[in-house]
C-alpha cells in the first residue's frame, strides 16, 4: 500500500498530463503525419513520393514537436495554472538526456529489426499488428511510469487497430496512414475527454492572494 506522501508525489509527477493538453498536442502532430502520408500517396507525382515522405515526416516530427510544446505551455498558462496551480519540474541533466535518447534509439532499432525479421519469417501482413503491439507496449510503459490508467486503454486501442491493419492488409503507405491516424485520433479523443473533465472539475478560483506569505 502506498503512503499518502508517495501518492502526493506521484500525483505531482504526473501533473503535466492532468489536463490532457499534451495528448491533444501529440495527437494533432501524429494526425498531421497521417494526413501528409495520405496527401503524398494521393497527390504527389510517383517520382517524388519517396522524397516527400523522407523529408516531410521528419520535418513534421521536429517542427511539430517544437510547435506543440510551445502551444502546450501557452495553453497551460491560460487554462491549467490559474485553476490548479503552477509547477516547475527539474531539468534533466544533459548526460541523462543523452542516455534517454540513446535508449530510445536503441529500442526503436531493436523494434525495427524484430518487426522486419518476424514479418519476413511469417508474412508482411503481420507488420501492422507488430507495429501496433510495439506502440501499445510503449504507451503501456509510459502509463505505468506516470500512473495513468487512460494510457492503458490507449494501448489496447492501438493494439486493436494494429490487428485491424493486419486483417485489412492495406498497401503502403495506407498502412502507415491507418497506424498514425488511429494513434492520433486515440490521443485526440483521450486528451479531449481529459481536458473536458479537467475544466469541469476545476473551476477558476477567485483571485485573492491576501493570505499568502
Amino acid at each position, binding site marked *: 500500500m502506498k503512503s499518502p506522501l508517495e501518492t502526493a508525489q506521484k500525483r*505531482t509527477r504526473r501533473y503535466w498530463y492532468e489536463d490532457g493538453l499534451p495528448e491533444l498536442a501529440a495527437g494533432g502532430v501524429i494526425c498531421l503525419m497521417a494526413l501528409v502520408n495520405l496527401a503524398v500517396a494521393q497527390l504527389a507525382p510517383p517520382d517524388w513520393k519517396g522524397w516527400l515522405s523522407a523529408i516531410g515526416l521528419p520535418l513534421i516530427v521536429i517542427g511539430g514537436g517544437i510547435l506543440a510544446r510551445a502551444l502546450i505551455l501557452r495553453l497551460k498558462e491560460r487554462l491549467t495554472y*490559474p485553476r490548479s*496551480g*503552477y509547477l*516547475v*519540474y527539474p531539468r534533466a541533466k544533459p548526460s541523462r538526456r543523452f542516455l534517454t535518447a540513446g535508449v530510445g534509439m536503441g529500442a526503436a532499432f531493436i523494434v525495427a529489426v524484430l518487426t522486419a525479421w518476424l514479418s519476413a519469417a511469417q508474412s508482411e501482413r503481420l507488420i501492422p499488428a507488430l507495429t501496433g503491439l510495439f506502440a501499445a507496449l510503449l504507451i503501456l510503459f509510459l502509463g505505468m511510469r506516470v500512473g495513468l490508467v487512460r494510457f492503458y486503454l490507449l494501448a489496447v486501442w492501438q493494439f486493436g487497430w494494429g490487428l485491424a491493419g493486419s486483417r485489412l492488409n492495406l498497401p503502403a503507405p495506407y498502412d502507415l496512414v491507418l497506424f498514425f491516424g488511429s494513434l492520433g485520433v486515440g490521443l485526440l479523443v483521450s486528451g479531449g475527454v481529459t481536458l473536458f473533465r479537467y475544466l469541469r472539475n476545476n473551476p477558476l478560483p477567485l483571485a485573492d492572494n491576501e*493570505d*499568502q506569505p
Partner: protein
Amino acid sequence: MSEQPLPPWSAVDRLLHEPARLAIVSILAVVEKADFLYLQRETGLTKGNLSAHLSKLENAGYIQIEKTFKGKMPLTLVSLTPQGRTALEIYLKSMKEWINRMDQNPKE
C-alpha cells in the same frame, strides 16, 4: 540476541513531524518549484493555514519563497532548499529506522 535501543524521540525533526508540513516538503522534493495554489490544492489546507506552515518552514531555512508576477497576477513560488532536502532525507531515514526496529521487536 542483542537488542538495540530505539532512537530517542528528540532525534526526530519536530518541524517535519507534522503531516501538513511533511506533505508540503514531500511535494517540493519532486519539483523545482511549486506555486501557492498547487500546494493549497494538494494539501487541502486553507490559505491561512498554508501560509503559517510555509512561514515556519521558511524560518527554518527548509524552503525558499519567491514572490513574482505572471502577467498582472501575483505568483508565490516555493522551492525546497538543500538544507530542507537534507532534513527530509534524515527525517525519512530516522522514521524508517523506528518502524524497522519496532517490526523486529513487536512485543515491545
